[in-house]
């Protein structure tokens, strides 16, 4: 993927470039908002990674400007501000996701993957991976033709994993998207619910679908 990184802190920028390039992405980087806006208009990028605080034009105004011009390139905001308000403002301003610095690189990679996939995709009403099926309208799930009874939160968890099938999702992504939690809980909410979900959809069905990716998160994958 060709990614444009707009980040004024050169040390952070260098780290991000390194991480993305190690995953085979090509990264273009600029260090202020004005040049960032120009580059974003000039090139075709798969995703933009934009710092909120930039010299010249700040990140939020930059993205609002691009959206106003009809450019739909997925945007991941980076910020050192940890307030929920900033997150909401960022998403309302046209960002697709929001990441608070400092972050683990696995988190950054997972989120970049998630926003590029999500973009331009029509919302399906049925999700499928191997012999696992979900009907989002009727709110049913089945594997190998056998109905699986899921609690509401397990249903949302499975839905999120299925939508991101084949891609790593991090614990934080699950907390934010499944439970709407924007802080780090001290108990194992994610692990506990995942383990319950696994026991329902993976146990007794031969091949496991949900896998733990050490140090990164989880992935739903049909091998």
């Amino acid at each position, binding site marked *: 993927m060709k990614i444009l990184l707009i980040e004024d802190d050169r040390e952070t920028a260098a780290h991000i470039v390194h991480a993305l390039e190690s995953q085979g992405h090509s990264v273009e980087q600029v260090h202020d908002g004005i040049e960032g806006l120009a580059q974003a208009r000039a090139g075709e990028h798969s995703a933009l990674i934009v710092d909120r605080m930039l010299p010249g034009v700040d990140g939020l105004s930059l993205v609002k400007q691009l959206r106003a011009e009809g450019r739909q390139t997925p945007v991941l905001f980076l910020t050192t501000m*940890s307030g929920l308000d900033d997150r*909401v403002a960022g998403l309302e301003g046209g960002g697709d996701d929001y990441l608070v610095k400092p972050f683990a690189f696995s988190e950054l990679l997972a989120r970049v993957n998630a926003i590029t996939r999500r973009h331009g995709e029509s919302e399906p009403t049925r999700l499928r991976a191997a012999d696992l099926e979900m009907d989002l309208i009727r709110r049913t799930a089945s594997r190998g033709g056998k109905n699986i009874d899921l609690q509401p939160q397990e249903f949302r968890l499975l839905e999120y994993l299925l939508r991101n099938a084949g891609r790593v999702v991090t614990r934080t992504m699950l907390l934010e998207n499944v439970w709407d*939690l924007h802080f780090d809980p001290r108990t194992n909410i994610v692990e506990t619910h995942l383990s319950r979900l696994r026991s329902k959809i993976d146990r007794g069905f031969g091949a496991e679908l949900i896998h733990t990716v050490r140090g990164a998160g989880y992935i739903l994958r049909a091998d």
Partner: protein
Amino acid sequence: MRIRFLHTEAFRLSAIYAGIFALSVLAMGSVVFVMTDRALRDQVVQFSRADIAAMRNGFDAEGVKEAREVLQQIMGKPGESDFFLLQKDGVPIAGNLPAMPARGGIVSLPGSGPGHDILGVGEFLEPGLYVYAGSDLQRVHATEEEILQTLAWLFALAMLLAIGGGTLVSRSFLRRSDAMARACRAIMDGDLKARIPVRGAHDELDRLAGTINEMLDRIAALMENLRQVTNDIAHDLRTPVSHLRQRLERAREESHDAKDYAEALSAAIEKTDEILQLFASLLRIAQIEGGARRADFTQIALGPLLTHVRDMFGAVAEASGHHLELQLGADVTIRGDRALIIQLLSNLIENAILHTPEGTAITLLLSRAGERALITVNDDGPGVPREEHTKLFQRLYRREASRSRPGYGLGLSLVAAIAELHGAETSLRDDSAPGLGITLSFPVTLQPGAG
């Protein structure tokens, strides 16, 4: 003091009042004086007219001789006029005045000296025969002087009262404004506990002092808060940062291969994350306490929200051998920040899960008491001794018993900050039943049509 006193608002006001007072006393005095003067002169003229009437009677009855007789009879009698003259064709016939130009009506004559001028009435008994009766005005002047003197005394007394009263009022005002200034100066000099004295008179100065004191309390609370955050950051970041440093140092000394290094680095990253988490929590509390988030308040139905929270933690509680039960006594709507209320409840439930032994039952309870929505998180675990209750909500307070567990003691101060932001009161269950019970009482939003 004396000079400053002249520059006070109270002095200015009392001077203006004294001036107005003086003017009105002067005006009243003048009116009294003029009217008295007129009355006294009228009296003198009346006497003269009566005397002349007597002489005319004598003349009409028996001619000039009798008129002369009457004149001599009344001259020198007390209660009558002082000066008389009867003259024919400019030549005095009787009386104690020299010849004078004959004029009818009220006639003033210069007397024997200053203040002794004569006021009287002249009349022709027949052409060429002129009679005059008048009195020395000295008595009138004396009476008038007495009146003037009395008025002057009254004026002086009034001025004294006005100035004295004004001085007293402005001195009391000055004293109180001085006290305010002193308190302010003391605060500027660093005594943040200084407050403006309130006299208890409930007057406007007391109200002003009360308002200023409230403002000072608020500022002091914010300052204290800030001071504490700074202290907390200084003291409590020191520990994890020095731990981090120790680990890194030990890794450098003791690591033998790549695996050792990788492990040491992972541990260091984990420790760093903890430190950042602590930072984020402190900032978040400060942000919430700043109150800026009230703008994002929406209506929150607590029933569904509590169900969501129960679903979230039910499995977690079960996995650690606890039992989490939800009791919905009422569905109540409050105004608030949904994400923060979820965080508040998460904190309380996680505390109950993390700080009680296996087998503890945790109850999440929603009820309504009048205009308050009550959310209670109750457990039947070992509880917290009563003497520690007040400390529980302090920032970074960690019970001795929980020091070995992860966490920085920010959970309940975050709860307190969120509760405060929502106007909720926090109370701890205070009965003999085992365990800890924390109740939050939120103001209920009035339902449309219900109020």
